């Protein structure tokens, strides 16, 4: 007996799948933009903040890096509403899957991005920071105009890699029934009895998206940074 492939589900469910892809890309975009922003703040606090603040930031980063992402998602979906209900006394308070997912991803990705950005700042020669300060710049100005532009250039490949990993991690939201791309594909597969086709298709789409990111990294590495000494 041979298996008869039938790919027609894909075409029929196209709008639904696109909707799922929309959710996936939305989560990636929000988690990346906010994650890089907070990650930069965290990295600066770790490197330049007063000792107590630096240790707090380090604790935050280590905490979220040691916890499985899926657990963080669970927390925000199940635990946070309980806590808020207990505090506010409102028995109907709910976070909702979208906000739970955004909160979990932003908090966790900030921790991952922080470590990349910290390494990126460390990759800029110490003399650059000294030279900027010798010209009268404050620490903030030296970071903004001299150190961070070079750091971000050095760490672009690592940032893209992390974002590719984030893209795959967003599929974890199926645990709180948020309809991302993988969730949509799985549901269609179940409905039509075409799981094999849908999971193969989903794999191909993730592969294509991740390959785009990897190609971007290669392109950047080959081109290098022409203005570096």
């Amino acid at each position: 007996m041979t298996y008869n492939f039938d790919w027609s589900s894909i075409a029929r469910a196209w709008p639904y799948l696109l909707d799922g892809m929309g959710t996936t890309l939305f989560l990636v975009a929000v988690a990346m933009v906010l994650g890089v922003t907070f990650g930069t703040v965290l990295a600066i606090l770790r490197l330049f903040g007063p000792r107590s603040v630096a240790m707090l930031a380090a604790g935050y980063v280590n905490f979220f890096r040691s916890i499985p992402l899926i657990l963080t998602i669970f927390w925000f979906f199940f635990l946070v509403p309980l806590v808020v209900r207990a505090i506010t006394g409102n028995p109907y308070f709910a976070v909702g899957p979208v906000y739970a997912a955004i909160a979990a991803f932003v908090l966790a990705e900030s921790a991952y991005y922080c470590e990349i950005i910290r390494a990126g700042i460390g990759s800029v020669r110490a003399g650059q920071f000294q030279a900027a300060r010798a010209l009268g710049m404050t620490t903030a100005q030296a970071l903004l105009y001299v150190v961070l532009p070079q750091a971000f250039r050095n760490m672009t490949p690592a940032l893209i890699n992390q974002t590719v990993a984030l893209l795959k991690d967003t599929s974890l939201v199926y645990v709180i029934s948020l309809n991302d791309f993988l969730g949509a594909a799985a549901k269609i597969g179940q409905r039509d009895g075409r799981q094999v086709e849908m999971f193969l298709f989903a794999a191909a789409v993730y592969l294509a998206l991740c390959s785009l990111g990897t190609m971007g990294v290669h392109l950047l590495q080959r081109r290098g940074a022409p203005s570096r000494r």
Partner: protein
Amino acid sequence: MIAINNVSKWFGDFRVLADCTTRIDKGEVVVVCGPSGSGKSTLIKTVNALEPFQQGEIIVDGVSVGGLGRGLPKLRARVGMVFQHFELFPHLTVTENLTLAQVRVLGRGKAEALAKGLRYLERVGLAVQKDKYPAQLSGGQQQRVAIARALAMDPIVMLFDEPTSALDPEMVGEVLDVMVGLANDGMTMMCVTHEMGFARKVSHRVIFMDEGRIVEDCGKDAFFGDIDARSPRAREFLSKILNH
């Protein structure tokens, strides 16, 4: 202009500066020399507080460097510094290197900063390179741009931290020529350098350091001419550096 009084600094238990005292007057060119590890680079970096120190005081133009805290950037903007490894900003063009701090620190307008930057670029003989990135310049050219960048801030004193040590030998001359020109124009300069030819030609005084101490601090004629009056350590150093 600069008074360094009984300055000491420790890295952990290791004393890098031991009770250093000297002064640099307006218009004076002072060369600081000594074997590596003697603390000369550390001493020059305490003047604009890139290196903190634990004891003593440093007065620059009437302001005590030690307790400045938030006032430090203001002081540093008035003290030019040139580094061994140039430290031009590699992501910016020559022009942007020259104007960044003028605009952001001194609050000058873009046009004014550009005019000033180009004037000093002209002075170090690199006006044609204004749109290039540092990586497209030779080491000697980069260092000349770095000098122009510092001068564009209208500093009251220029600090040089081994400005020619990282250069290929054939490029040392072009950087020294710029420095000689500055000295002849009456700029107050404190230079850590091994270029004894430069010291002989334009310096007024020579400071010799060893193991964190200022061992010699005398006029250049005494330093190079009256060798018998020098300390044994300075004589040894001079015989090594002058005999080849």
